[in-house]
């Protein structure tokens, strides 16, 4: 089995950011990128399959040089190989087309993604990747077992409001794994340093068959403006000594019950 894991780099701190030209993405001045949390669960789940049944694992990230860190982390955690798609694409369609093509090129028969990125918060890329490949897609997967024939996976997934569903899904397929699917592993600094010595495969969109003018046709939305949240109802912020605050809160609780 060959598992591809899509790993997104996101800014560690949402400090200085602005709208990228053309409204295609947010651009960040912060230098430090970290692995998106829900993708880290996908990565660790894939590595679990490597340890358990010897699955081959490829990590794929999309971004500029700042996302190279994500690839090093994936290698330090134990993936077999890693690919960075050198692109600043941000829209779900564009990103999904590029990732889908990379997954296909790598010959993976299972692709794992996280449920949501902390920056775009859209939960769309996994579904669009699956659609572009014509593969089944399951969202919010909380456990994965390999089917007896090795040609399918048996998953448990969330349907919301405490409902769970068991499904048998033929491979190849795309699964969006829920946070908490497995314990997160820690990559010690020494392993991360060693990972930096490995050569990373980097492909640009054109090498994946998407020259700029083709990729542009997949830009189906545009961020026009970024603004502070318009707060519909704002909390009364309490100030005072801890004792004063505590007395006030206990009084409000008493009134409310």
């Amino acid at each position, binding site marked *: 089995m060959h598992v591809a894991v899509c790993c997104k780099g996101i800014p560690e701190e*949402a400090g200085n*950011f602005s709208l990228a030209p053309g409204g295609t993405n*947010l651009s960040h001045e912060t230098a430090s990128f970290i692995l998106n949390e829900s993708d880290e669960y996908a990565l660790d789940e894939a590595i679990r399959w490597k340890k358990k049944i010897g699955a081959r694992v490829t990590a794929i990230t999309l971004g500029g040089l700042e996302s190279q860190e994500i690839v090093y982390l994936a290698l330090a955690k134990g993936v077999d190989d890693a690919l960075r798609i050198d692109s600043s694409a941000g829209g*779900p369609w564009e990103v999904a087309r590029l990732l889908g093509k990379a997954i296909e090129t790598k010959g993976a028969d299972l692709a794992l993604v996280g449920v949501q990125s*902390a*920056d*775009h*918060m*859209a*939960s*769309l890329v*996994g*579904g*669009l990747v699956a*659609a*572009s490949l014509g593969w*089944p*897609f*399951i*969202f*919010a997967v909380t456990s994965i077992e390999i089917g007896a024939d090795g040609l399918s996976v*048996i998953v448990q997934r*969330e*349907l*919301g*409001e*405490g*409902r*769970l*569903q*068991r*499904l048998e*899904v*033929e491979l190849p397929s795309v699964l*969006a794994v829920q*946070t*908490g699917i497995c314990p997160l592993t820690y990559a010690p600094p020494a392993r991360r340093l060693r990972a930096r010595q490995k050569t990373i495969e980097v492909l640009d969109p054109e090498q994946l068959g998407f020259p700029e003018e083709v990729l542009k046709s997949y830009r*189906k*939305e*545009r*961020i*026009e403006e*970024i*603004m502070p*949240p318009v707060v*519909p*109802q*704002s*909390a*009364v*912020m309490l100030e005072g000594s*801890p*004792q004063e*605050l*505590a007395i006030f*809160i*206990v009084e409000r*609780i*008493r009134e*409310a019950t």
Partner: protein
Amino acid sequence: MSLNVLVYLEHDGRRLQGDIARLVSKGNEVAQALGGFTVGSLVGDIGEELLAEARKLKCKEIAVVSDPGLREYQPELYRSALESILEATSPYIVLFRHSYVSAELAPALAYRCNAPIVSNCLDVEVKDSGIEVIRPFLRELCWGRVSFQGSPPYFIALQRFSFHKDVPANEEPPSIKEIGLKRPSKLRIRNGGITRRSESEDISKAEKIIAVGRGIGEKSNLKIIEDLADALGATVACSRPIADLGWLPVERQVGISGKTVCPKVYIACGISGESQHVAGMKDSSLIIAINSDPKAPIFRVAHYGVVVDLVRFLPVLTATAMQAKGRGQGTESKEA
């Protein structure tokens, strides 16, 4: 292509889910601005009860694909049914609630239509320049105004629905348009059944909830939360990361993937307040948020907010609650 708005009426087989009536109202507002009307789309093994509930919605029409094979949700069959509805209704906009099911179905439908899709939206507006949505970015620290570039249908998943004006809706019950299910020639997903999580204690029945999030720091600090809950006679609940870490059982989790609660008092301790959590507690009568980050989105739904170090402050709150309880008990015993 019509100028109509198709609204997906999500349900769990028994009842419509989420605030569907408001989603339909939002659909009406958008449809009126476009010059069209709202069509509901209902997919499942639709019984009388569910149909009666749907008929109360202020849609002009409801497109129904009902088949015994749709009794339980199956992604490929539900998608196929929605594809038939899309073909039969050719809407300008397709509205979903932002949910697990829409995260699975909507991208596949948008892909098939070669259409734009924007999810997790807070609002939709029809402008002279086109359709725009407002949605959060960067852990909800900012909002973005997003326009659609391609051609319709436009797929939009809304996480909550705000209104600008009351649209006089059609008072007639919606007409029903039945559409047959086209079974895909080969199914690649087999349903092994839907279950509900077993629950040792039902937090949705609690009158007072102390909910703990990642801001608590260490697992050992949970003791501080338990002490406070004891002092206030409250039930302990948590946000997703705490359940993911295994610090508290998953049945204590509040939010889209956990329970929806509506207690008289909800104290959010170290919970940042992302929409997935807020959706499960926003209707609580009194919400007090305690967090060390003054920018935490939880302060947008809370009635009262305190920016403090939890580990230092909560024991003071516990002691104050104990004293108040002591006084309360004293009075009661005197009266007795």
